[in-house]
């Protein structure tokens, strides 16, 4: 049986906990009352100083000194706010001021911290202010995926060959986050990444090549054609599919010819991708092959074939109309649906 003493102890503990929680809430309210206003005033002061410094061509030491006196969190917040809204010479002036105030040195120190959360914060400050610091480059091989992703984001604004080479190695990163960040960064770099990416695709296969193919498809540079043709012959379905899409993006006679072959591929994903690509290329000579795919046993292939026929214009529409009158009910229905689509939705 539980003794009364024990009941008293439990009850007092519970009352104590409730009292503590309620007092915490009230204390939090009091803290807010005093600190929120002070914090807002500091942020406002920082913003004003920043705007004056960035807009002025002379260095106002007084403003820099007043910024220096603010807490790191307020300084960083104000600098990053402005960084999102300036570029070119404005950004250069901002970086100069940040260096004078000590924000950049603080960020560099954070980048070297043993705690990943601090390194991440440091990398984010340097990224958002486009600071070309080799410290961030080193983070491309950090053990935490969030750091590698952040470093990749930084690298998008530093498109040099060593940076691109380091980024390409990350296309095989096991962490999705890092891979996605690298793909996006390579896309943001644009044509400058196309050459190294071609070399990379020539030497790699598997999931690494797949990640690269997706970037290549968005970059759509003609120099990817040969590598896409080679990869369209690999055994891996995902790679063949990605290669088929890339062929559609780069275009060309050889690409079209290969895509026509891929319309008969054993994997439905590849057939669908090939149909989609032929539509993207507006390759009207593919009309007959695509109309055959309207009778494909697989839904996505039929749909992509019909969309491609609509995309290639009058000859394709003719094939669709013929399919409506044909014996194959599935092909007829699909053709009808795609012909019904308003132009905006058929693109």
């Amino acid at each position, binding site marked *: 049986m539980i003794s009364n003493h024990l009941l008293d102890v439990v009850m007092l503990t519970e009352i104590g*906990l*409730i009292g503590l929680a309620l007092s915490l809430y009230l204390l939090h309210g009091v803290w807010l009352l005093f600190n929120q206003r002070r914090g807002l005033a500091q942020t406002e002061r920082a913003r004003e100083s920043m705007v004056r410094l960035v807009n002025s061509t002379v260095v106002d030491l007084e403003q820099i000194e007043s910024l220096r006196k603010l807490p790191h969190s307020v300084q960083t917040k104000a600098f990053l706010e402005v960084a999102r809204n300036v570029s070119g010479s404005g950004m250069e002036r901002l970086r100069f001021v940040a260096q004078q105030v000590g924000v950049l040195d603080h960020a560099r120190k954070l980048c070297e911290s043993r705690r990943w959360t601090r390194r991440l914060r440091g990398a984010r400050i340097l990224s958002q202010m486009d600071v070309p610091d080799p410290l961030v480059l080193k983070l491309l091989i950090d053990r935490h995926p969030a750091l590698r992703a952040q470093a990749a*984001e930084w690298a998008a604004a530093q498109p040099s060959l060593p940076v691109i080479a380091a980024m390409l190695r990350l296309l095989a990163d096991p*962490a999705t986050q890092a891979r996605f960040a690298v793909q*996006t960064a390579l896309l943001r770099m644009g044509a400058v990444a196309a050459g190294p990416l071609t070399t990379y695709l020539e030497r790699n296969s598997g999931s690494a090549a797949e990640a690269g193919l997706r970037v290549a498809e968005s970059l759509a540079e003609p120099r990817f054609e040969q590598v896409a043709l080679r990869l369209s012959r690999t055994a891996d379905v995902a790679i063949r599919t990605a290669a088929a899409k890339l062929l559609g993006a780069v275009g060309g006679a050889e690409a079209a010819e290969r895509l026509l072959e891929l319309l008969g591929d054993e994997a439905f994903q590849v057939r669908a991708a090939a149909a989609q690509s032929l539509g993207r290329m507006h390759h009207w000579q593919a009309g007959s092959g695509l109309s055959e795919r309207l009778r494909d046993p697989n839904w996505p292939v039929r749909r992509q074939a019909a969309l491609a026929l609509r995309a290639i214009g009058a000859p394709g529409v003719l094939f669709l109309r013929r399919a409506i009158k044909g014996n194959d009910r599935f092909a007829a229905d699909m053709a009808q649906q795609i012909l019904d689509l308003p132009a905006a939705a058929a693109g």
Partner: protein
Amino acid sequence: MTDTLRMGFNELLVSGKIVLLIYFVGVNLWYLALLISSMLELRRHFLLISEESRHLLLSSTLSPTISILAPAFNEEASIETTLRSLLALQYTNLEVIVISDGSTDRTVQVLIDRFDLVPVKAIYEQRVKTQPVRSLYRSSTYPSLVVVDKENGGKADALNVGLSFAGGELVCAMDADTLIEADGLQRMVRPFLLSTEVVAAGGTIRVVNGSQVKYGRVVKTAVPTNLLAGIQVVEYLRAFLFGRLGWNRLGGNIIVSGAFGLFQREAVLSAGGYLRDTVGEDMELVLRLKRLSHERGGPGKVAFVPDSVAWTEVPESTAVLGRQRDRWHRGLADVLWRHRRMLFNPRYGVTGLFIYPYYALVELLAPVFEAVGLAALALGLASGAADWRFAGLFYLSAYGLGTALTAVTLIVEDVSFHRYETFRDRALLFVWALLENLGYRQLTVYWRLRGVWKFLRGRKDWGKMDRKGFHPLPASGPRAL
């Protein structure tokens, strides 16, 4: 004879109340563990997202495509506003599919008129059996908009039809009256980019009552002055910021709100889509996905994203709220019953050993224990088997620590998201948190018990759910979503 009976009765009450006390102390200790877990998780989350550049997702054509599935039933008054706000969400690869679930009002006509819809041949790849589709429309001005008009079959059926039409790698299931914040999807997609193991993700649902809504967006937040709505604000904050966030760290969630959740489309289709004959279709799907990931292999992680926010209107009348809570509890009982073989089954890992038992013993049975406790306490006090000291202890165990946890949750909300910025709002929240245990909590016990009773009797109806809406709404039809 009477004395023997009385003594026996008193003894039963005394031993019963000790069992109850132990139960409540155990539950409270578990809540404390959840609270600590949620605070650690929130800290980690904020460290990860602070100063991140989410806008990069916007510019990237490599972001996963998302298909929003918006089931609508008789929403003619609000569908245009809702849809415009969906089409304006900040996400690049977005497709919006509105599924009119046999609406008997002008929902479809309003959509046709306002969004330049044209009928197209209604064929689709049916991977889940559903009610027939009456017609399919595409827009001449919004390429990413698809409207499906189908026979009435309930929300699960409408979502299954949506799944068949969806082209996205991810599907976002929502209610037609949910207001998703402009960057809600950008935030919600994050766990899918972090891990290929994630099969579903849920966001925070906040109460819109009292706040100002313009063009389908919440433009000014405020705590409602209505008692029921106000207390529900506190309840929702506690459920999401403390419950779901806490589970994120302790092995994952098994609930993704039906009002706003993101799923891997292929995983949902492989699992057979939403189950139609349950009122807890959202939880059932998540638990099934988790179960199948253990049985067949494949992704099975369910993430909660606290900063991805959607707003929903909560009932302001006891009758409607009662029906909602009764339905939720019936759904919980039904889902747990369907997947009962997971209970304490090591094959299902943390889900079988901890999460499922928590939902069965704490979430499902709490109202039973609470009701028995209250009844026994009243009897005990009347018969002299319990004294006021024990009554005080019981009350503190059952409700006191809950109030303390709520107070801490409110602080966490204020420090992390601080959506309620004025002194008035903070004071009101505090008042609602204190008032919650004086009548409201006991009412929810009654509603939840009613839910258990109806489940035992096999009732599967949704009940009529009236909403004030952001515009006046017409009356409900045969089967509300």
